[in-house]
């Protein structure tokens, strides 16, 4: 029941985010969708992931996008059509993708088996696994984020010579 509610919320938010003309509204809808997804995670017992989802996506990514919007000054409603020139073909592609996905979900083996739900995992286990088995990936991610930070700054930095 709860799952259905949040699922509907998520999908509605996503649809809205993809269809609003106004970018900021789109972002707000996106936030709703993210929040719904986080709720779904919590329902699935992934507490850490759910909270991390809110912290990262709502707290960081959404804000980032907002900044980008305001920096590119496109927040106002654009007069010309918001859809790209070749949207008809896109619809076909999208429908095709969704079709195959849904079909495969419907007909896959996992559809029949219904496993019992184990209890949600504790922070302790996550911490242990993260520090022992997945220590290396963790560090790699750290490096990646650092590089991304530097790279983003270098890309977006406002070159002086342009202003002169």
């Amino acid at each position, binding site marked *: 029941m709860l799952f259905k509610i949040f699922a509907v919320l998520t999908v509605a938010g*996503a649809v809205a985010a993809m269809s609003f003309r106004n970018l900021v509204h789109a972002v707000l809808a996106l936030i709703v969708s993210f929040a719904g*997804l986080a709720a779904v995670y919590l329902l699935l*017992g992934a507490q850490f*992931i759910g909270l991390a989802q809110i912290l990262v996506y709502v707290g960081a990514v959404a804000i980032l996008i907002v900044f980008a919007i305001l920096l590119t000054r*496109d927040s106002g409603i654009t007069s010309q059509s918001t859809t*790209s020139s070749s949207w008809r073909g896109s619809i076909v592609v999208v429908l095709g993708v969704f079709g195959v996905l849904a079909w495969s979900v419907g007909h896959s083996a996992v559809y029949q088996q219904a496993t019992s739900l184990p209890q949600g995992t504790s922070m302790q286990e996550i911490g242990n696994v*993260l520090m022992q088995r997945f220590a290396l990936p963790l560090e790699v991610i750290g490096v990646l984020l650092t590089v991304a930070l530097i790279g983003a700054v270098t890309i977006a930095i406002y070159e002086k010579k342009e202003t002169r």
Partner: protein
Amino acid sequence: MTPLANCLLLSALLFSIGLAGALMRRNAILVLIGIELMLNAANLNFIAFWRYGPNPEALTGLMFVIFSIGVAAAEAAVGLALIIAIYRHTKTTNIDQVNSMRG
């Protein structure tokens, strides 16, 4: 429908919506948003399979999502920086007009 199938359907839906946005919107930022949605769909799949998979104790799916969230953050940062840079050079975020790589 089993809960797993529900989750998978939801993620499929999310993915398709994100794809639609990425394909049909002409604003680069919205394209990026679509991509973020697709990533989230993938995350949802991981979580679902971790939860209802054969052995949830391994936490593999969970870890995968943690890392993919990290990657998504990096991706968003770089992507938006790129968009800003593009905007600064060709005063637009309409990616229909950003096609200087055409063959």
